[in-house]
């Protein structure tokens, strides 16, 4: 318990206010400066949940515990493994992004990625056979998050796939993701043509072993330190990872170059990484997940520990509500399309990559990445405002990830569902856009709004739990 301290209260107090303007004006009339919040009442029916949350004596401490655990995490890539080895995946078991979903409800890109994964695993001779297996429910679908993994876009992970293993010694957490394939026609966007499968095979047979050897030589790779730098070099860690990927290659190049393979193969690896500005995304995502997982299951906490989309629904998980998903139909992103595509080609929001916003970067650090503000519908000023607004719905500022253009203010970290519902400010999410039809691949990148209903449902459940606590 803290010392009761009336010092600030009883000497020249600084005052903020919310509510009746007249009362603030009466204070101003005394020559005292006072700041007013531009509060609006939340949607009808939500006052009860917020009021219960206010009475929940666990919440303030629970949220501090949750957000500090996430902030103090020091995730490192320790090496590579496979989905079979690390997660026990069998050949017809597939992980996917977002909350749980069935084949019947799956969108085009997820279906395409599943078809591709069946081909990769050799479970089907061609796409038609793969499709039939899926229609006949011969496959098992599990959310990545249910197995300690995350996957961008469709997020399909199958047994033979190589995975990064990311560990956080501070909180004793581990998380996994597969290796990023590049842009355009790629499995994660729902493409499954032969070139896609061939690339996945090369990743498993060549890239992964070389990286594995390189990590062994280099030692654990500190992802938080990488992000701290890349955020000051024009990345926001979700839709722009150009600096981060370059930093990764720079730091790892000596270790990669020493691998016991031909210089042609080494060169191929360098070229592949160089050609993929999102190469590091599949390392920062599990790093964010390992960090956020340390904040799970803290009774009374209203902090979001996962936001993820499966192409059909947007779902969130909240620390004080266990593994329960709170879902609503996913919105369709808006942004800039690759040539030859139109708005009707865009699939609803998909991917686990919103773990970056959960961690406080991506759309939350939009102001770090002025180069891509056009992607997300506007000007640098708009990016500034977006980031600024995110401080309203978050619990803390991450001192390890600082925003240079905000005079090194820490990134807004730890989304609080109560603050989201109370302010009606939704998390700002940057995202890639997948084509609606299976097999097409990426069609652009942009911005998407999570559905408010997810946050309202989660709030109600944590509020209810406080009643019986």
């Amino acid at each position, binding site marked *: 318990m803290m010392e009761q301290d009336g010092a600030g*209260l009883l000497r020249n107090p600084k005052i903020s206010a919310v509510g009746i303007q007249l009362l603030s004006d009466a204070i101003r009339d005394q020559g005292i400066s006072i700041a007013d919040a531009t509060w609006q009442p939340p949607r009808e029916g939500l006052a009860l949940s917020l009021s219960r949350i206010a009475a929940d004596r666990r919440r303030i401490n629970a949220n501090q515990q949750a957000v500090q655990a996430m902030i103090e995490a020091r995730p490192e890539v320790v090496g590579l493994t496979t989905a079979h080895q690390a997660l026990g995946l069998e050949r017809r078991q597939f992980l996917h992004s977002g909350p749980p979903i069935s084949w019947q409800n799956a969108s085009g890109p997820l279906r395409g990625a599943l078809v591709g994964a069946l081909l990769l695993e050799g479970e089907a001779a061609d796409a038609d056979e793969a499709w039939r297996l899926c229609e006949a429910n011969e496959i098992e679908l599990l959310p990545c998050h249910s197995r300690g993994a995350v996957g961008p876009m469709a997020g399909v992970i199958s047994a033979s796939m190589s995975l990064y293993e990311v560990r956080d010694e501070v909180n004793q957490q581990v998380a996994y993701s597969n290796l990023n394939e590049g842009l355009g026609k790629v499995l994660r966007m729902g493409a499954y043509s032969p070139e896609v499968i061939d690339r996945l095979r090369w990743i498993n047979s060549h890239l992964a072993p070389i990286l594995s050897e390189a990590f062994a030589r280099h030692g654990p790779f500190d992802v938080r330190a990488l992000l701290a730098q890349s955020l000051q070099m024009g990345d926001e860690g979700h839709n722009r990872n150009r600096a981060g990927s370059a930093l990764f290659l720079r730091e790892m190049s000596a270790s990669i170059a020493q691998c016991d393979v031909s210089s042609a193969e080494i060169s191929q690896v360098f070229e592949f990484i160089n050609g993929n500005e999102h190469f590091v995304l599949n390392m920062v995502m599990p790093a964010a997940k390992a960090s956020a997982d340390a904040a799970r299951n803290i009774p009374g906490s209203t902090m979001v520990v996962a936001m993820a989309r499966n192409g059909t629904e947007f779902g969130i998980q909240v620390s004080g509500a266990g593994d329960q998903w709170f879902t609503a139909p996913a919105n369709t992103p808006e942004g800039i399309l690759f040539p030859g595509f139109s708005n009707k080609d865009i699939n609803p929001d998909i991917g686990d990559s919103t773990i970056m916003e959960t961690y406080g970067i991506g759309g939350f650090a939009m102001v770090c990445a002025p180069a891509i503000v056009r992607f997300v519908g506007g000007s640098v000023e708009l990016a500034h405002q977006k980031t600024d607004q995110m401080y309203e719905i978050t619990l803390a500022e991450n001192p390890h990830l600082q925003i240079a253009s905000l005079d090194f203010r820490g990134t807004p970290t730890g989304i609080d569902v109560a603050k989201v519902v109370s302010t009606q400010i939704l998390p700002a999410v940057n995202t890639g856009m997948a084509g609606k039809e299976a097999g097409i691949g990426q069609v652009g990148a942009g911005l998407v709004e999570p559905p408010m209903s997810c946050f309202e449902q989660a709030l109600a459940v944590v509020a209810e739990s406080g009643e019986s606590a």
Partner: protein
Amino acid sequence: MIDHVELRSGLYRDSVALMLLTRTLSQDNGISDPIVAMATTLNMELARTAGYEIPEGSGSELLIAFRAEEEAISRCLQIIDDLLNQSQDPTVAHENLNHRPRSLGRLATDWKSDVALVSVPGEHAAYQAVEAIEAGAHPVIFSDNVSIKNELSLKKQATDLGLLVMGPDCGTVILDGVGLGFANVIPAGPIGLISASGTGAQQVLALCDHAGVGVRHVLGLGGRDLTDEIGGISAHTALTMLEDDPTVEVIGIVAKEVGPSTRESLEDAASKLSTPVVWVPTGDLTNGTDQLLEVAGFELRAVPVWRPAMERPNGSGRLVGLFSGGTLAIEAQAIAQASGCEAEIVDLGADEYTVGRPHPMIDNTLRLERLAEMSRDETVGTVLLDVVLGHGASPDPAAELQSALRDISVPIFVSLIGTNGDPQNFDSQVNQLTQAGAEVHLSNASAARAAVIR
């Protein structure tokens, strides 16, 4: 002096930021030859040249090297940690933005507020208050209709964090001379008040001002704080805070409702303080204030009465009291009852009258309607009113009431609760009321007694 050298991994800072940090360190007399830099080959060489023994690293660590006396090492490391983790003062970043926060929590955090005034509708008030608590601000909850359960929880949460919850339904607060809500203007002085009765506190302020004694703080805690259901959680905190304020020489407690066990625990706490604590009973606020002033070493001179411009004939009917202040109504009721006088005392500030309309301290419409009825009602023998001045109250209540008072033929007694500094101009209020035929008292008890005798 000994050398401290370490390589910290997982910490990246921009080189310019680190150069500035190193410069700040070198200005500290206890630290010699500081180097805080990313552990590049060049920086490691520089450190070796400066005579430090540098271990091998991977090149991506942060190098920290300095010389200091052994006992000063931990202090130096603390300074470095603080500088490394310093997040920019958000108010500076905010200056360039037009964006005004929607949430009280963010606002209070960014502006480093000590106090957060909450006056949203009651169903939303508890959440706003908890945001203030989370942001480290003491909430003043003006809103009413907050449940007992929420009040209890908010007060417990605040106590855990060393904060004081004022309210809910807190009408009057003065903090270091700044009035929040309905507050009279009074010079700073030796008295600190704890109040669970807004207009009760205002009566004490009016009388102290008359006695020439200043009041620095009024900590209004809401009417329920001293009931046994809440147990005086805020009152205990407030006692500690006022005790710790060296300018407070006497503490007064005004509460319209006090639970027996709460009273006992507060008396026990008060007995351990070096500052004397005086209970001002709401049954007779004037007498209570007299005692408070006496303990403070002053006295309440004769409480002034201003005669009406024209005397009115004595009526033969009952006494009707139309009050805006709840505690003042209760005090008048008690006095009428004790005298056995037939009286109908109405608190027009009670919840049943204020649904969908402003409080009678802000707007006299309802009171004017009632006064119009009085003028036609022959069973009414005497009329008793309170007029409360100060910040937040109607800008000229006497002018609003004047013509309705003139239409009444029976004697009228007004307790005028105000100070010389109040924005309404006390003398002008007295003048208008007496011109309209009212006998004006500074003391509500004295007005009630005069009305009862009549």
